[in-house]
């Protein structure tokens, strides 16, 4: 494992992009960032600007207008960056898949590296997704 990969996987800055989620996924994401789980132990911190992000969390049903913005925000992120789709909405559309303005699952316009199923997924599930991603990046 190169030192660069080690540094990257040791210091993932999380950017959370909510695309009109029902708010449950967002709350669970915030739960995962509380002192109870203490993700700073693994170098994960929440950042406010996508320019500082290494890990983008997408949650919710992105409608036709939000999808364009989501794609643009993804493009604004400095690479390398990894993307995780949080919740059934972002992965599949969930109960909103028949909605007239749903623009399809997020991986249609943003390359997604990990999917976390659940409505909403528990913080443990999100952390497992991050751990799996980190292992994959390190080639273990």
């Amino acid at each position, binding site marked *: 494992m190169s*030192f660069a990969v080690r540094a990257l996987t040791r*210091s993932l800055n999380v950017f959370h992009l909510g695309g009109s989620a029902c708010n449950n996924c967002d709350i669970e994401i915030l739960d995962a960032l509380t*002192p109870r789980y203490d993700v700073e132990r693994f170098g994960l911190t929440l950042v*406010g600007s996508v*320019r500082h992000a290494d890990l983008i969390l997408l949650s919710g049903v992105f409608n036709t207008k939000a999808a364009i913005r989501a794609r643009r925000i993804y493009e604004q992120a400095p690479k390398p960056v990894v993307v995780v789709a949080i919740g059934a909405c972002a992965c599949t559309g969930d109960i909103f898949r028949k909605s007239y303005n749903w623009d399809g699952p997020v991986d249609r316009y943003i390359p997604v590296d990990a999917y976390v199923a659940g409505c909403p997924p528990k913080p443990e599930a999100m952390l497992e997704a991050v751990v799996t991603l980190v292992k994959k990046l390190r080639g273990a």
Partner: protein
Amino acid sequence: MEMLPLTLQVLVFPGLLFAAAAGLVTSWVDRMVTARVQMRVGPPFLQPFYDVVKLMIKETCVPAGGARALFLAAPLAGLAGAALASTIIWRAFLARGSGFSGDVIVLLYLLTLPALAVILGSFASRNPLASLGGSREMKLLLAYELPFVLAVLAVVARTGALRLEEILAAPAAATRPSGIIALVVAVLCMQAKLTLVPFDAPEAETELSGGAYIEYSGPPLAVFKLTRAMMLFTMPVFLVAVFGGGIRLGDGVLPAVAGVLKVVGLVVATILIRNTAPRVRIDQAVRFFWGPATLAALVATGLVFVGL
């Protein structure tokens, strides 16, 4: 301590490299104490180091329409200021006769360079949130510089010296009432100089999402982070030098350890303030620094003239 050529002193010890390493350790202490206050375990020792190295391998995005050269050069100006300030302060601790008359004034200017770099960088990034952060940083700078300079003036007035070495040779300012008041004012100004809560309005994670730094990514952001870490270490050292008698390195282990402990004490006080105070609005900050803080610094200077 006359072994290193001047360039190496600025770049390695006690300048850039030393201040960067010490700053990263200090910022680990900061995150660790914060974690303990929140009953967490906290990040590993090398975390701040990993953060900086990680940014080095990331892409650098320059916003379209921004002032490209200024955007990329601004962080370096701040880094240079912090490194030079550290060099001058530590040279005064290490070697007699290394300073020059008026180096305290030079230090006051050098210590404002990181803030100026943030202002320039934010205005160069052509982002409304960044310019808002930059303008807040500017107001904050105007606000805290007045009481900060007055607090230092209280010490200068008592010792009658504008040379750091002569201030270090005089008995520590913080043993007298005037010095204690000036030190308290200076600690509060340091909090604003480091843009830590309660004076972190220029960054304001919640409403400006990173504020002045919003458009920065990759190596330039790493330089900003490094500068911040260096200031987190250099500012307390400066205050200990001016108010607390400095770190005496020549006369045995005990005085040296005592000096380092003073720095650690100031750092921990800063961290505890930032963890227990809410953020104040920028107008409240300006009112505070130009009102009570300036008044207290003036009182301290006045006390010097009546011999206290």
